[in-house]
């Protein structure tokens, strides 16, 4: 479990240290203070090497990062970002990105000691001796292409070998290396739904562990009409579908955003025992009347399965609902609220962490805490 996290030279962060992390962490702040970037940095630190997450520059422009349909190369991701500098603060690739965390063991974690773990990202210079060796991983034979290539190395202390990402003419390819991870993790994006295939896969494991009834009852928090769920074979693939009292089961993709996102979060958490989930703009699609119950469910699941939660929000209602849910359950100690602020003097981002006392003082006096 993460206790603290430090991110240097990544996206908008010069040097940000966030301490006193709880089991459930809600992160707020004005636009462009780095809420999503912080989640991305931590997601990388867990060991996930999802190229799409690393390179995302515009969440709405999802098509930019879709799998390349021309080459049919599953490892090739289109990324019209102009190269690796976009990932570094102020395009400064001369300094490495340093992601360092203090962790305490989660049961069954690969690394069971209280320790400090670093993940470093650096751009390999074409002048460096091992550049050509690194290129060998990608099997690129077109030397003209290689002239404009750039390699990003992700070197984690817990990994046997660094991950290499090759950027060449708007395409990114990851080296096919077998990597370890610090924690299993999942990222639920703000602007895109989890895929139908992924939803079915996550549900399969919930079904396998005999938690179908639990899943249905949990989903009723957001959609009380759901009486059953099942995997149906539709157009050659399994699709998670729900019985909401219509003449046929309805695919989840046809249900509302709130139901889909809540189902995604719940299913992902159910499959993440001793892991970490990142949810961007967690409030999307959830009506205010069910937000407290949604938090209660997330809190229960986080505790039961030992999952650490990091979520961003802009919603004061959602913060209030979280406070109500955790204080009512007498477990405010598990909840932390962090706000990212632009520091006017240092020209950097500063984090303000509200501990139990802070969130209680703010909520009971109706103090504006979103910045």
């Amino acid at each position: 479990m993460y206790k603290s996290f430090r991110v240097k030279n990544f996206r908008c962060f010069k040097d940000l240290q966030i301490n006193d992390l709880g089991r459930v962490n809600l992160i707020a702040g004005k636009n462009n203070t780095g809420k999503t970037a912080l989640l991305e940095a931590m997601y990388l630190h867990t060991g996930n090497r999802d190229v799409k997450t690393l390179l995302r520059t515009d969440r709405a422009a999802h098509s930019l990062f879709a799998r390349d349909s021309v080459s049919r190369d599953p490892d090739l991701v289109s990324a019209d970002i102009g190269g690796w500098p976009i990932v570094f603060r102020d395009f400064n690739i001369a300094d490495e990105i340093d992601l360092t965390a203090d962790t305490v063991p989660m049961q069954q974690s690969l690394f069971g000691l209280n320790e400090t773990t670093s993940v470093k990202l650096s751009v390999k210079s074409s002048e460096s001796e091992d550049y050509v060796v690194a290129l060998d991983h990608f099997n690129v034979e077109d030397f003209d292409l290689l002239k404009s290539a750039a390699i990003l190395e992700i070197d984690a202390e817990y990994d046997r070998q660094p991950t290499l990402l090759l950027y060449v003419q708007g395409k990114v390819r990851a080296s096919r290396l077998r990597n370890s991870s610090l924690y299993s993790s999942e990222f639920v994006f703000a602007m895109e739904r989890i895929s139908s295939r992924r939803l079915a896969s996550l549900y399969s494991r919930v079904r396998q562990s005999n938690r179908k009834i639990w899943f249905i009852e949990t989903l009723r928090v957001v959609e009380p009409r759901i009486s059953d769920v099942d995997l149906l074979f539709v157009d050659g693939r399994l699709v998670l579908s729900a019985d909401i009292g219509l003449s046929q089961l309805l695919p989840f993709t046809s249900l509302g955003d709130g139901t889909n996102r809540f189902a995604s979060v719940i299913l992902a958490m159910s499959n993440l025992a001793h892991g970490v989930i990142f949810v961007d703009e967690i409030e999307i699609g959830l009506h205010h009347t069910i937000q407290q119950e949604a938090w209660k469910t997330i809190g229960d699941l986080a505790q039961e399965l030992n999952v650490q939660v990091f979520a961003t929000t802009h919603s004061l209602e959602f913060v209030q609902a979280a406070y109500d849910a955790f204080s009512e359950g007498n477990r405010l100690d598990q909840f932390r609220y962090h706000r990212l602020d632009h520091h006017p003097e240092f020209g950097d981002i500063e984090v303000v962490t509200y501990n139990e006392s802070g969130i209680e003082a703010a909520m009971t006096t109706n103090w504006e805490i979103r910045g």
Partner: protein
Amino acid sequence: MTSRIPEAGVRIPADVTRIVVLEGPEDKTFFSALAEQLGINDQLHFITCNGKDCLGSTLENILNDGNFHGIQQIGIICDNDFPDSRDGRGALETVQDEIDEANNAIDESLKTTRKLPRPRKPRETEGTKPKVSVLLLPDDHRDGMLENLVLDAIGEDNITNCVDAYYACLESQAQVKLQKAREPRSRLSVYISGKIVDKTYATNDDSRRWFLTQAVDMKWWKDEKMWDKPQFKPAKAFLRQLLKP
């Protein structure tokens, strides 16, 4: 399960550099009216904490606020009304305790960059950024509250003599056991009632004004140049002091 819908919250605007923390809405109305008289109302931001017991929470909120780094001065105004509470400690000690409580309550990670200094004496600023000072009401030495200060400023006139006689009557004829802590507010209300029925002064609007917060808008308050009374000088000096660099 019900969900509370939060109202627009208390906030410190980004351009605020001077904050006045007061115990209640009456204090806020009075001191913002005084600041208006001085022409400095737009340079001060008034926040109420609903009693000294909640001062610590309010200061904790200020310490955690996104605009904390912009604050240069904080003035705390509170009544000197309970010497017997907190093991006999006075209002200044209570404020000092609440400041300590707020400093200790914030998250460990913030303690190196966010701290409020502890004023050692009333009306003297302490610290650098932010500076903190305390004004006790009615003054540094007497037990009481804002209403005592206003009663002092009113002084002695025909109506106050009647008010005195009324309270004496309450005690002697009606056998009412007067609660000293509530007396100043009650006396001032009775005094204002006398002003409401005074044909010489009262306007139609004044007939609906019963409390101190409303008195500052009444005709007699203006006619008798209440804001110019010497009893308000320390309060004026305190507000002006908050504007110093």
